[in-house]
């Protein structure tokens, strides 16, 4: 039984008041309480960005790594102990800029991890530069003449690269986000949740009102097992046309399942022991 107190650290978040990270923080903790995620069965990895500070505010085993490199660390953890629920907290810059290569390969391999992609369409921590998801023509400190580049459609990229679970939720829909995180963790495979969030300080366009006005829930009739409609739907992003919900979910072998040597139990359940390599040495004669 996990309580809010179990998950509390001595530190109150230093995010700006109104930051979407508060919603993500609340949703994740609620999901942990509902699911019983604790220090015997869970670990998370954070990158560098405002999201990265999560390690200081949730008392679960965690690793704050390098900018862009949370996903490989998480992959290594999961391969070594696949009993753990493994989460990645990453941002639009962390995941799609610095960490782009790792993102697409993790999707390709279908590592059984859950990626919480904090997408505030800007670089927050470094004070306001354009990010890989900032809209074209946006004026920021780094693109004062207007962003010359088209943004990524993160979920479209994830699905095309091979992810088997792709969803989008708004950060302040705490209940909905909690539910999605639980669903994503239950899914066996690479789960990507793009979490749209406001950045009160640096992104004056993507406000809470912007998200509540322009997002709409995918209808109950939407079939998330169809990759073609998922790819189409994840290209949709405009005025009154930002779908939220579960876009794609299919079952495929995970990266971890390709290693028969860890079928029976997690790798680290057996402590390292000195191996008999006589056969290997014999081949050298």
């Amino acid at each position, binding site marked *: 039984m996990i309580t809010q107190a179990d998950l509390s650290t001595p530190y109150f978040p230093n995010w700006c008041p109104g930051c979407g990270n508060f919603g993500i923080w609340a949703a994740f903790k609620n999901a942990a309480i509902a699911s019983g995620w604790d220090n015997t069965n869970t670990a998370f990895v954070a990158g560098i960005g405002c999201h990265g500070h999560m390690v200081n505010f949730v008392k679960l085993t965690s690793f704050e790594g390098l900018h862009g490199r949370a996903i490989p660390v998480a992959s*290594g953890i999961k391969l070594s102990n696949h009993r753990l629920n493994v989460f990645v907290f990453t941002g639009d810059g962390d995941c799609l800029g610095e960490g782009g290569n790792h993102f697409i390969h993790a999707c390709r391999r279908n590592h059984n991890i859950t990626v919480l992609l904090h997408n505030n369409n800007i670089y927050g921590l470094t004070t306001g530069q354009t990010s890989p998801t900032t809209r074209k023509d946006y004026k920021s400190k780094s693109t004062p003449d207007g962003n010359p580049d088209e943004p990524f459609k993160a979920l479209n990229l994830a699905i095309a690269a091979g992810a088997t679970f792709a969803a989008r939720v708004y950060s302040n829909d705490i209940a909905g986000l909690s539910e999605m995180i639980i669903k994503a963790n239950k899914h066996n495979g690479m789960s990507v949740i793009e979490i749209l969030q406001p950045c009160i300080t640096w992104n004056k366009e993507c406000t809470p009102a912007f998200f509540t006005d322009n997002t709409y829930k995918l209808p109950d009739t939407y079939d998330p097992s169809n990759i073609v409609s998922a790819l189409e739907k994840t290209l949709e992003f405009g005025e009154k046309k930002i779908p939220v919900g579960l876009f794609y979910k299919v079952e495929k072998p995970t990266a971890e399942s390709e290693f028969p040597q860890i079928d029976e139990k997690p790798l680290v359940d057996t402590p390292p022991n*000195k191996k008999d390599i006589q056969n290997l040495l014999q081949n050298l004669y």
Partner: protein
Amino acid sequence: MQTVFSESPVYSAIKSVDFLVALNQETVDLHKEELTQGAGIVFEDEGKIDASSCKDNCRLFPVPLKRLASESGGQEIVSNNVALGASLAAMGGDLELLLNLITEDLSSKGEEIVKINQTAAKAGYDYVKENFSDKFEPILAPHETIDKNMVVNGTDAVAFGAIAAGLQFAAIYPMSPTSNILHHLAANQRKYGYVFKQAEDEISAINMSIGASFAGARSMTTTSGGGFCLMTEGYGLAGQTEIPLVIVEGMRGGPGTGLPTWSEQGDMRMILHSHQGEFPRIILAAGDSKEAFELTMKAFNLADKYQTPVVLLMDKNVLDDEQTFPKFDYENYQINRGKIVTKTESQYIRYEVTDDGISPRSFPGLGNHVMANSDEHNSYGFSSETIEDRNEQMSKRLRKLDTCAKEDMEQPVLYGPEDADITIVSWGSNKGSILEALKDFPNLNYFHISWINPFPAQAVFERLSKSKYLLNIECNSTAQMAGIIREKTGIDILDRLLKNDGRPIFPEEIKAKINSILNRK
């Protein structure tokens, strides 16, 4: 490709050639200056190769290699075995032994292939026996008994050493000259129960390996200099988060893409200094396959004990050169995981400040709240920027090196007499060439350094202070080892034999240098 064999130990490649097998003209042109007086040359007879420039000093064995290959029923590639048979005859060897080796080596390809190659070998053998019996030199006469030795290179040694040491996880991106380590590890993972993952790039490789180690697995990655450049951020991450990691770096010619398939000893400075800021790094260097095997196993224990990255440096020659050694002995090796927490604690302190700098390590999943933080942190692991936490954690981490210097660092090895006219100082694969050269100079000694960090400054200072004459040998352009020695001991080795053309330093070159010093005196 060169093979050096002898009845006495052979330590390195040599420059001179006593027998040349030329399958193309380029071989003759490239190596004719290296041929010794009376050297033998087997070469394609029918039109292609002109070895006439060598006819005065050498015994020529023109053999219709391709014709005999095709007459044996094989493709052109079978000329290899025709040439082997021919060479064997010229050196007075026993054909039976070659035929047995062909069976051993090629039986996996089927009986027909074995037969074709044996026929080809015999054809070459018979041809030379019939036509050139006056030119034989019987140096390959069989022995009554021989010691059975392994023929092993550095990549075998590293891979098998890692497996023996209880390797559990490796993530590697291929790069010459270390790719063969990857191949070995990939092929044996199911049998030995560890996980090998080919990563998408070197940055992923090191970060995956760190994640695995955080989870409690004995973990390693391998690369060459250029790949290590990409790993520098991860290198410091392991140091800052205090996560054990073994990194094997196989040096090749740099900078940039450099000389991918040639050697250099150019990365010592990079491994000593790369990454921003300061963190404890343990650095070892192997001089041959046996050292590679032993140091690999040792590296895992050091990494676990000190919870920090351990780099094992090897130059391409160590990795690729096949050398005979008695079977590697690892009976006395014991796995040491260092300070491991086995109980849950109400408030586990991951980065507890201790006298030796090493904090007790708990694995995820046990029940403790375990943190790894690349930010500067307090002893629990939460991010911190306070003066107190910064000073405490920084000095705790660096203290580990002092502990290592006291408890585990090894002294350099002296080969040769205690008193010598010249003391050669060097590292890496130069060891073999130096030992080969010293066969002619029993009054000289060789000081072989394999611990780079922490550095055995006291031992080096004492040895170098009492030496009559110092000679530094390195395969780089700026004498990196000599620089480190000066920095750590104050002793500047002025006479430096530096070679950086990608080739190994040959015993002949060392002997010439030694003679020039001795003749000067």
